[in-house]
């Protein structure tokens, strides 16, 4: 039970999220990114009906640990099982600059929701274009055999 379960995921994280923190959104649909263009598609950042966009606070975590969080805290909890393709990394500052708020709930640990989305879908789409443009695509090395 060493490794993942032994790792301190950061219980002592401050509740308030710094603009300089890195956030990750885990992607389990091929349609949310383009491997050939090396980009995350804007639709990956559109929130569901409750207007809570699920992200994880991944600042200062080793790359391997971030993948483990995605696998154990998100993908493995899904029914039916899913393929874990990639993640989108971006700075909290991007969401904050677009008048969104990031609310940490630690359920599961390091989880947060991006809230404060406009009612109009067209405005939400515009925001997602900005986040997508400033995010980095990371392909899951277990899926794509990359050197990340």
């Amino acid at each position, binding site marked *: 039970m060493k490794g993942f379960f032994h790792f301190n995921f950061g219980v002592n994280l401050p509740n308030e999220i710094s603009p300089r923190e890195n956030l990750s959104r885990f992607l389990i*649909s091929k349609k949310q990114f*383009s491997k050939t263009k090396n980009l995350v598609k*804007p639709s990956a950042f*559109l929130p569901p009906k*409750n207007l809570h966009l699920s992200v994880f606070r991944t600042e200062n975590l080793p790359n391997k640990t971030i993948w483990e969080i995605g696998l154990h805290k998100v993908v493995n909890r*899904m029914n039916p099982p899913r393929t874990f393709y990639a993640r989108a990394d971006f700075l909290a500052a991007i969401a904050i600059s677009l008048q969104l708020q990031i609310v940490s709930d630690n359920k599961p640990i390091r989880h947060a929701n991006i809230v404060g989305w406009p009612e109009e879908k067209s405005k939400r789409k515009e925001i997602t274009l*900005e986040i997508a443009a400033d995010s980095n695509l990371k392909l899951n090395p277990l899926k794509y055999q990359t050197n990340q």
Partner: protein
Amino acid sequence: MTTTCIPSNYHYQSPFFFSSDRGMSETAAVLHRALERFSRDGSMSFTNDDSEIFEELEDLLEECSSANWDGYGAEALSLDSYTEAIRFIMALPKTIPLPEATVEPDGEIAFEWFKGPRRIFSVSIGNRNVVTYAGLFSFNKVNGEEYFGDEIPKTIMDNLERLFSF
């Protein structure tokens, strides 16, 4: 009259062709039947290039026809959006580069054009003749809704022209 020449050695597959041995959800089966009706309409014609986007739409149908396809509570791909998306592509002038297709958490299909890191235009195909769009042109941004009747709305065409003009 429009005619299409296809070389005899070219393996052409209609974008409306579905292999029957694929597993399908109930929604997918409904969409399949709707598309079969489309394909019997002899007034439609399409180029080989179009087939790529129809294949993408078919992929979306397979991947996103059940709720929660994204693992975050997304709605299943909407039948209305799917048929409207086909109509949108048929109405798109052939001079416009084909977009990439995706599905959004509300079940609507979106067409996205990527010209560069901050040069993106996206159109969501809603139910009942409404399209929702947003664009990023370097530091300029646009968003809005348009009625989609028989033709692609002028605002959409203007924004696509803007995207590809420089």
